[in-house]
């Protein structure tokens, strides 16, 4: 009954989406306010039905109703409640339902909070949202129905893939989808602008908060996924340049570029056409990511789904939306009035540079990800493009970008003063050089590039702080004045500082982890001691334990450093009988922002255990960086000038900056 209700709700949501996709457009064409307002109510109703459908699937999973195929294949009555819920999106059908539910959520938000939008713009935006939603409802109903019943219900389910039975599944996919799908809003705004043939600074002001919100979620989603892979897979890697990861990185890069170009458009009314194009590209890349993961075209070891009808259907969606929007762009872009010109050395110029490098970096990832697919289709040769390719292309493109990051915020709009900016960055530059010298001296004879990279990271962080210090007049004014100025600064300025510093923080973590990671791999007997990076780990023994739906073998290590005992570490290996699979549960111990990492291999007949131990210096910075970036994003989002639905900016920010 619940399954049928969920299915029916989804059909109704499709019906509403079809109305929402057509009637408001007709209304805008006839200039009929009532028809245009249909968009608002249908978007809200559509959200209600999509949410009901999703809730139905959650209920089926929680109540372990194995008469539903989706529940049977991905759940087990003994599974802990949390994983019963997260298991809803730990499979193809459920994750697509989550995808459209989030799409409906964003549509509903625009409908609910978009009262200050011009009526026709809102009608168009919601109609475009509904086109996307209709396509995905159809996809689910025709090829991936999560509510299918089994005629002869089994009494027990086949359990969720054990690798996915982790808190990571609760956070990572929803975050990622909020990011992916969030970019549909800027896409819809872009298409609506093209349809209306009108775009102005106000348009950018409406689009920016949505883009920023999506970007924050995507940043957190990617970082969470990376940390999850790091601790769950048992070999300490945190980024593999796997196509599925690249699929999320590409929209992130394009979205970051969009975030910056939208600023130029809002403040200077320039880069209009480019911003529209970026909005389209960012969401297109999100769709491409969905296609790559969902269609199973990848040789990637983690695209499990292999059903050609689904692949072809998503490919069709991809072609219609990307092709359609780009055609519309080609046809209508010339109708948009070009904005003002500006000097190359200016805030706008710096942001253009940012866009140039980000989109180029995005393009190299695109080539590396799709080239093997194209080659296989064209010649039948199978190749893999791995980390070396991306390190050789992505790395060099990011160096000039990062060098330029501190300069951007210090340049004025319209016409900047490069020498002046450089002068204000002297302190940051000196700090960076000191960092290079210190690291090089400390690791003498070691890697050459690593100290330089750390210097670059320090420059980015110090540059962000220098920009802030400049604005609040640190050391130049009395403390009370400085403090008052610090509180008076727009939150988006603070946001910029945190986000830029976050990039530097992440870079330090990445460089340290990859350069000075130490590892110890051996088979150990009881009583053996492993020594790594000043720590001694003694294998004290192994025990067996029965979990709710698995058995696990736990090894106990006594850890000490310099003779001082630390907390013991207990890595384990779980075997899940339902699927005959085993997973490795690594043990992690945090010291400052560095980590000790122990994971187990197989146990030999004589009782020796294969063990992998890593010491990962400053590894946590890799994820603190993105957290800082997301925090910066949230701060900016809370800026009253940017608040979602803020009627009008209180004051143009140029005036505020000039007053300081």
């Amino acid at each position: 009954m619940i399954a049928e209700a969920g299915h029916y709700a989804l059909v109704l949501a499709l019906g509403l989406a079809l109305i929402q996709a057509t009637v408001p457009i007709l209304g805008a064409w006839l200039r009929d306010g009532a028809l245009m307002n249909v968009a608002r109510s249908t978007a809200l109703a559509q959200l209600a039905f999509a949410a009901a459908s999703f809730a139905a699937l959650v209920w089926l999973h929680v109540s372990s109703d194995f008469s539903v195929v989706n529940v049977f294949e991905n759940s087990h009555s003994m599974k802990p409640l949390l994983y019963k819920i997260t298991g809803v999106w730990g499979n193809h059908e459920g994750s697509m339902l989550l995808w459209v539910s989030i799409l409906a959520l964003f549509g509903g938000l625009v409908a609910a909070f978009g009262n200050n939008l011009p009526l026709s713009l809102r009608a168009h935006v919601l109609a475009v949202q509904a086109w996307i939603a209709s396509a995905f409802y159809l996809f689910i109903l025709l090829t991936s129905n999560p509510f299918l019943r089994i005629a002869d219900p089994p009494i027990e389910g086949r359990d969720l893939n054990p690798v996915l039975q982790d808190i990571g599944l609760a956070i990572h996919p929803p975050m990622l989808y909020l990011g992916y799908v969030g970019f549909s809003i800027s896409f819809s705004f872009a298409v609506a602008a093209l349809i209306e043939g009108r775009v102005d600074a106000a348009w950018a002001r409406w689009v920016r908060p949505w883009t920023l919100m999506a970007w924050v979620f995507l940043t957190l989603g990617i970082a969470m996924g990376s940390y999850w892979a790091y601790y769950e897979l048992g070999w300490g890697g945190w980024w593999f340049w796997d196509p599925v990861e690249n699929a999320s990185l590409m929209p992130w890069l394009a979205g970051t570029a969009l975030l910056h170009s939208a600023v130029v458009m809002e403040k200077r009314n320039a880069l209009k056409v480019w911003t529209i194009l970026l909005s389209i590209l960012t969401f297109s890349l999100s769709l491409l990511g969905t296609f790559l993961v969902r269609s199973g075209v990848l040789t990637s070891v983690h695209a499990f789904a292999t059903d050609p009808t689904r692949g072809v259907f998503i490919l069709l969606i991809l072609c219609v939306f990307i092709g359609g929007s780009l055609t519309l762009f080609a046809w209508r872009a010339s109708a948009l009035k070009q904005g003002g010109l500006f000097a190359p050395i200016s805030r706008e110029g710096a942001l253009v540079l940012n866009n140039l490098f980000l989109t180029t970096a995005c393009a190299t990832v695109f080539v590396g990800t799709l080239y093997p697919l194209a080659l296989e289709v064209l010649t039948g040769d199978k190749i893999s493009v791995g980390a070396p390719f991306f390190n050789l292309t992505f790395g060099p493109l990011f160096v000039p970008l990062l060098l330029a990051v501190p300069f951007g915020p210090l340049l004025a709009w319209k016409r900047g003063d490069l020498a002046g900016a450089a002068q204000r960055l002297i302190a940051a530059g000196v700090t960076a050089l000191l960092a290079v010298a210190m690291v090089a001296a400390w690791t003498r004879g070691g890697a050459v590039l690593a100290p330089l990279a750390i210097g670059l990271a320090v420059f980015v962080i110090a540059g962000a702080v220098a920009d802030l210090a400049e604005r609040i007049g640190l050391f130049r004014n009395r403390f009370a004045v400085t403090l008052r100025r610090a509180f008076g600064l727009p939150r988006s300025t603070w946001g910029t500082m945190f986000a830029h510093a976050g990039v530097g923080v992440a870079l330090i973590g990445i460089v340290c982890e990859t350069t000075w990671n130490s590892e110890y791999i051996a088979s150990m007997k009881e009583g053996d001691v492993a020594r790594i990076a000043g720590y001694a780990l003694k294998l004290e023994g192994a025990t067996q334990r029965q979990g709710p739906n698995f058995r696990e073998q736990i090894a106990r290590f006594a850890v000490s450093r310099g003779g001082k005992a630390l907390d013991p570490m207990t890595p384990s290996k779980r075997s899940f009988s339902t699927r005959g699979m085993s997973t490795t549960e690594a043990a992690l111990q945090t010291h400052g922002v560095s980590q000790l990492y122990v994971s187990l291999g197989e146990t030999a007949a004589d009782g020796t255990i294969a063990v992998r131990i890593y010491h990962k210096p400053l590894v946590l910075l890799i994820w603190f960086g993105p957290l800082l970036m997301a925090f910066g994003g949230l701060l900016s989002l809370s800026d009253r000038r940017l608040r979602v639905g803020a009627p009008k900016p209180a004051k143009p920010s140029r005036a505020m900056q000039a007053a300081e």
Partner: protein
Amino acid sequence: MIGGAGVVLAIAAALVLSALRDSIVFFSTPQMVAEQHIAAGKRFRLGGVVEPGSLQRGADLAVAFKVSDGSNTLPVAYKGILPDLFREGQGVIAEGALDAAGVFKADTVLAKHDETYMPKDVADALKKQGHWKDDYDKKPGGQAASAQPAVAKQGLTQ
């Protein structure tokens, strides 16, 4: 400004092309290795089925096994911990290079990630050679994990 953009794009294109030349890795099966005479030291990915009964463990985590595609077999040597899902009689992909004696020295071993899944490359290669058995193909319906991280990459790199 457009000139600057052109320069960046040109540099990027040059980087991509040179990286593509140096860092792509081809996929081969034992049959293809036998036919093509791949030079010792050239990196490639070897795919096939771990031949039942061929797995030998040496001292200090050294392992040796044979990879077969039905027509040919190739001995593989690896040192380290095998993935959780590595099993005899099932699909595997190893990355590394041949040594002078014709043994494939692997530095990375990737195994399939559930008991019925076969790496796509391996499945395609086996199908092409007519050694495909239908029971490899029993896909556990809709086990796709959503947008998870490299969850399935049960590999080890050293």
